[in-house]
């Protein structure tokens, strides 16, 4: 399907308002339409399958991991990949495959928790900012600008300097680091629908503003947020693993992928497999999320532009 055809489709279905009874929401069709779109996007399905596999691996970790991910076995340090240890062992004789399998849990949790945290704070801020406007908007957006004045991972690093290095603090700092993206997106989307007739109608019938926000504004910006969320889970996983790599996130003996790489770096001359495999796991998962996001963007929200 060409891009122009995509643009003709209604991106998010008719607005879900009580006032709009003539055209009730075709929920069934909407789901089917999104699924059809996803299927048409060549890379979204492979991306989705990769992500799903990682989720399965994370859930089933105790069942599929061949060895204990934490227990040292000092008789077998730095083994090259072989039949017993498929991906080799690290300097303490721990099975790298098992550590990667358990690490999937940590990475997915890191990504999800930080994005949920960012959404929980950023979305209400952005929606409020866009909906209320005026001074509230100016002040809130200035605050967001300040957060964005720290380049890249530096904001997360600065927050860790206050909270202290740990896995939980890494999630919190990545979450705070991600707030501006959601605040800006939510504000922009709210601004774009604020002047729509159905929002005006809500005002005209004297609906409580919070009810308007909850029932009419939020459902209409949900698709944007979901797309951004998928993208940001990938970025959050990358950022959190960077923090762990720097020694500012997950601490040993946690099988976090970034931490595994940080550790493996010391043995790069004698056991490069200790570096190569955890890194591949990060790339695969993040690539899967990025591909899925790209498909979702086209399916849910053809008008949304690349950031």
């Amino acid at each position, binding site marked *: 399907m060409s891009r122009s055809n995509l643009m003709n489709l209604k991106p998010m279905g008719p607005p879900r308002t009580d006032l709009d009874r003539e055209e009730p929401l075709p929920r069934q069709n909407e789901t089917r339409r999104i699924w059809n779109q996803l299927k048409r996007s060549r890379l979204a399905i492979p991306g989705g399958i990769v992500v799903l596999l990682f989720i399965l691996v994370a859930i089933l970790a105790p069942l599929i991991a061949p060895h204990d991910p934490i227990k040292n076995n000092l008789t077998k340090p730095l083994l090259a990949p072989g039949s017993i240890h498929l991906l080799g062992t690290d300097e303490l004789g721990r099975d790298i495959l098992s550590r990667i399998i358990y690490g999937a849990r940590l990475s997915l949790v890191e990504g999800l928790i930080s994005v949920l945290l960012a959404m929980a704070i950023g979305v209400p801020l952005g929606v409020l900012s866009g909906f209320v406007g005026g001074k509230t908007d100016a002040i809130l957006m200035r605050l967001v600008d*300040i957060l964005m*004045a720290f380049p*890249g991972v*530096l904001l997360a*690093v600065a927050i860790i300097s*206050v909270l202290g290095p740990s896995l939980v603090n890494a999630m919190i700092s990545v979450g705070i680091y991600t707030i501006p993206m959601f605040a800006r997106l939510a504000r922009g989307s709210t601004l774009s629908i604020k002047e729509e007739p159905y929002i005006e109608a809500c005002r005209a019938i004297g609906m409580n503003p919070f009810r308007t926000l909850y029932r009419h504004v939020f459902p209409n910006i949900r698709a944007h947020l979901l797309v951004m969320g998928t993208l940001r889970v990938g970025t959050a996983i*990358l950022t959190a693993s*960077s923090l762990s*790599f720097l020694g500012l996130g997950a601490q040993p003996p946690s099988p976090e992928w970034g931490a595994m790489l940080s550790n493996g770096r010391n043995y790069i001359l004698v056991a490069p497999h200790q570096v190569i495999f955890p*890194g591949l796991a990060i790339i695969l998962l993040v690539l899967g999320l990025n591909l899925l996001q790209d498909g979702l963007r086209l399916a849910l929200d053809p008008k949304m532009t690349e950031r």
Partner: protein
Amino acid sequence: MLPVIVGVSVCVFLIIHMMPGDPARIMAGIDASEADVRVVRHSLRLDEPLYLQYFHFVGRAAVGDFGVSFRTRRPVMEEIGSRYLNTLLLGTASILVAVFLGGITGIISAVKKYSIFDNLSLLISLAGVSMPTFYLGLLLMLFFSVKLGWFPLAGKESWAHLVLPAVTLGTPSAAVISRMVRSSLVEVMDQDYIRTARAKGLREWVVIGKHALRNAMINAVTVVGLQAGYLLGGAVVTETVFAWPGIGRLVVQSILARDFPVVQAAVLILAVTFVVINLLTDLLYGLLDPRISVQ
């Protein structure tokens, strides 16, 4: 710009107050007596009201005085001085790598739209943005230093030490720049003035080089500016991988050593540099495209 810098300075100032524990106690050492801690607290002005402390902090920061490092007891600016220049050197080298790699692949992808090269560069770009910088750094190190021995492993003794860190830091930005150059060039190539240029019988490379590229560059400049700022953050990771003696590595080491004056100074300097780069990008944007006025 000014409100943002003020906001950043407040955040950085608060780092030392939000951390767990008493800064005066950390500075004085674990074995210090209560009286010693009081002396340190007074000398650091930690017994004054918060707003006075802030003004004092900003006043001193404005003249480059960030106090004394907890770790080395040397003035913070002495610790930072040459490292800042090293980070700027690495940043400049990586933005050159990014513009060169990204520009060339972007232009070829746009000219040979939907070719194998175009699809391949899309795939590489996708992998490029999905790969953590430290992993790319370690892979380059493994291949070019360990296996081939072309470049030194880490440190900063010669120009050869700059190559791998610059490529590591520049590659993700190259991926972004490449996609941006491609899409803006593709858009420009459809414009009427390109058709006119072709109709005049100009050679294709003149059409692309002189007419298309100059107009496509306007969009690309913004992306390059944004990426240049982003590189400052990325330096934190890359410098650690290659033991590059820059300000980013200093931040990480100082956090782990709880050396807060250095953390404050380094974070503030990086953030202000970032804001200034963004301002310059905006100004440059206005210069390149007369339709945009700079207020």
